[in-house]
């Protein structure tokens, strides 16, 4: 009898465990990520996956951004802007606490901004804070920010992880134990394996948050990522690294496959400060040599949208300029001849270790050979690329994606920026763009900017980097496209 009761107790326990399995799955989720950060502080490290995991999940900012790119209130529940566009007064949400129990108020906002703006600041985007003159606490729930000049992107920029509102008591240790005000609190990080978040019960909108436990798994190898999805180790892979493996998942009824857009423009950058690329005819010849369809088919398995200038196709102000330099070998050769570039001239392409870049490089190399340019492909490591190409401008051509939003201003950074491009007319135009508060007018200027860059053929504009996501059918709430680096997880739901 006794043995019997033990046996039935064990059976009962097993039964419970089995029954608990599916029930648990409804409030827990495991998300695969390719890139693992080395720090968890978005205000001191630019690694995109820090924002991807933690911004607006653990940390919050004054504003946030929706999937369509529009700015929404977050820690600031409302704001007013003075008529001259220079003074922003933010009303803050009340009754919010940090994960360590300290209360959030206007002083935390001031602390966060002063820290990011300070002389010794290591904020990776301290350009965001550059237009700020001062931050003043009016009362515990009101904060006023004064700008030195108008900034059209100010409210959008405030939503980024770099502008997270942090707590003076815990700021120092955010790199290993992040503390914010968001819907999820940090629950441990096994470096090299996973990072865990758990729902913050005292979050101001806690009742709207359905998923209780989140595990991010770091899987860099595409084949391993695929195996992890197929064997139910991860439920979602929002930035899947291998376009060639998508058909396999499209055919699998367990998954939803989405091909969305990111803010990443992929360009064949040419060193405009160095001959022969200082000659517009050479740059145009190379633009004519590019067959974007062949590049996208070969490098991205057809999963990308071609671009003809430096602005994302999903943006409101987008103009399609892909027809400005159609693939035309004869024309390209003629231009090269005019510019005095000899047949068989050798140029190097220093390519960083990203699949989109290394794969595109091989196809572009063949296309350049057709117009008589002998392009040597040098595959370099990321640290080398940063120091030689980016910092020292020691390169002829390279392939790189610019993933920040609103980054057309790169072309106004002068000759010392790695483009080596300088055009006073564009500088003036960018100045107008970044200070124009009226959206319709700004879009008009952005269109002019795209045209100007395409006419100047500053670079070979290739395609917009796609966001490939593979998600379990029963999961909803993942963004198809990414206007920003983060993905709010409070919207994720398991549905039946």
């Amino acid at each position, binding site marked *: 009898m006794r043995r019997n009761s033990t046996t039935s107790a064990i059976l009962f326990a097993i039964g419970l465990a089995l029954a608990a399995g599916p029930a648990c799955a409804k409030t827990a989720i495991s998300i695969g990520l390719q890139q693992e950060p080395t720090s968890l502080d978005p205000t001191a490290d630019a690694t995109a996956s820090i924002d991807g995991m933690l911004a607006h999940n653990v940390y919050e900012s004054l504003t946030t951004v929706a999937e369509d790119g529009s700015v929404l209130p977050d820690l600031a529940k409302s704001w007013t802007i003075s008529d001259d566009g220079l003074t922003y007064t933010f009303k803050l949400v009340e009754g919010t606490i940090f994960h360590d129990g300290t209360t959030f108020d206007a002083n935390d906002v001031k602390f966060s901004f002063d820290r990011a703006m300070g002389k010794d*600041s290591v904020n990776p985007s301290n*350009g965001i804070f550059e237009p700020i003159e001062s931050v003043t606490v009016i009362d515990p729930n009101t904060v006023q920010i004064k700008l030195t000049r108008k900034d059209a992107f100010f409210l959008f920029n405030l939503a980024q992880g770099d502008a997270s509102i942090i707590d003076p008591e815990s700021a120092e240790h955010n790199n290993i134990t992040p503390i914010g005000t968001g819907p999820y609190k940090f629950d441990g990080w096994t470096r090299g394996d996973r990072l865990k978040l758990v729902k913050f019960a005292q979050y101001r909108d806690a009742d709207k948050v359905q998923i209780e436990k989140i595990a991010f798994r770091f899987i860099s190898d595409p084949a391993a990522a695929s195996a992890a999805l197929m064997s139910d180790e991860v439920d979602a892979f929002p930035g899947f690294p291998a376009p060639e493996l998508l058909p396999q998942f499209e055919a699998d009824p367990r998954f939803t496959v989405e091909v969305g857009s990111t803010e990443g423009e992929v360009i064949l950058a040419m060193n405009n400060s160095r001959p022969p690329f200082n000659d517009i005819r050479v740059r145009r010849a190379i633009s004519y040599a590019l067959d974007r369809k062949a590049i996208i088919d070969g490098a991205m398995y057809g999963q990308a949208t071609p671009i003809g200038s430096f602005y994302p196709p999903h943006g409101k102000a987008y103009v399609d300029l892909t027809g400005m330099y159609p693939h035309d070998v004869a024309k390209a050769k003629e231009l090269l001849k005019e510019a005095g570039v000899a047949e068989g001239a050798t140029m190097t392409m220093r390519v960083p270790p990203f699949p989109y870049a290394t794969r595109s490089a091989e196809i572009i190399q063949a296309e350049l050979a057709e117009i008589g340019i002998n392009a040597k492909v040098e595959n370099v490591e990321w640290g080398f690329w940063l120091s030689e190409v980016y*910092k020292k401008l020691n390169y002829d051509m390279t392939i790189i994606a610019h993933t920040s939003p609103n980054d057309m201003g790169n072309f106004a950074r002068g000759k010392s920026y790695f483009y080596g491009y300088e055009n006073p007319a564009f500088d003036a135009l960018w100045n107008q763009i970044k200070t124009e508060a009226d959206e319709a007018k700004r879009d008009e200027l952005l269109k002019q900017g795209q045209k100007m860059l395409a006419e100047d053929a500053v670079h070979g504009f290739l395609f917009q980097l796609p966001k490939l996501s593979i998600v379990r059918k029963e999961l909803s709430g993942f963004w198809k496209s990414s206007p920003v680096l983060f993905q709010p997880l409070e919207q994720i739901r398991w549905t039946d």
Partner: protein
Amino acid sequence: MTLFLIRRTLGFLATLLGVSVVVFAVMNLLPGDPALVILGIDSTPDAQAALRSQLGLDAPLAERYWHWIAGLAHGDFGVSYAFGVPVSGLIAERLPLTISLALLGTALTLVTALGLGVLAAANHRRFGDWAVMLVSQLGIAVPAFWLSMLLVLLFAVKLRWLPPGGFPGWGEPLAALRSLILPAVSLALVQGAVLARVTRSSMLEVMRLDFARTARASGLSRSRIFVRHILPNALVPIVTIAGMQFANLVTGTIVIENVFYLPGLGRLIFQAISNRDLFTVQALVLMFAVIVVTANFAVDILYVLIDPRLKARLA
């Protein structure tokens, strides 16, 4: 024997010192700035300069080396640029996995290789021999990462017997062991193939010697001859190769850890090199050097144990 040990230890320390200088020089000569890697391409030069001085990267090279080596003498490996935590902690949290994987891989390698090698030698020019030779030829030809992908497809995706990767930590021993099976098998199959062939040929060589024939003539059983007489005499080349393979195995885990996304030292060194995380790379390379040198050392000691003639010569 004591003199031998002292000489080996001094050589060992000199090797490590040489390795540390080379790594330090190479990491500093490599183009790449840790501050720029951390802050990304949209950061301002001011922020990069601030971070460089925070990390102590603005001090002269010799001074930085001296600081590091002086710290090392006190058991302080320094603080990682990228992670912002002590390097010793980073290594300590990853060491158990890599060591378990290497030991498990070695154990599997030895068991399969000795088993198959003896089987092949005992069945020389018969079916068993040919089968072992064929399988081991395949094992040598197939790269470990490809084999591991096939294993994952079969055992994790299709049959779902084992996890496709990851490591839950030794806190859950059963789950931890399960997640080490596929990586250890992929390591062992490739390494074991080489060792099986070495075992076979070494055994065959010894079998031809006079004492083996005498043993057979004196009427000893076949299995006794193999285990008591032939195998011990065939061990020297096997131990040599096995020692080299253990060192290979530790570095071979770098690839395997990526395929099975295991949080081990291999992935750490990969990440540290990309981040120009000097102190972490230094510590890891030194550690790998220690492991390789220790493995060689162990092989030397084993020679003495296996071969009494060497012992006599040393004494």
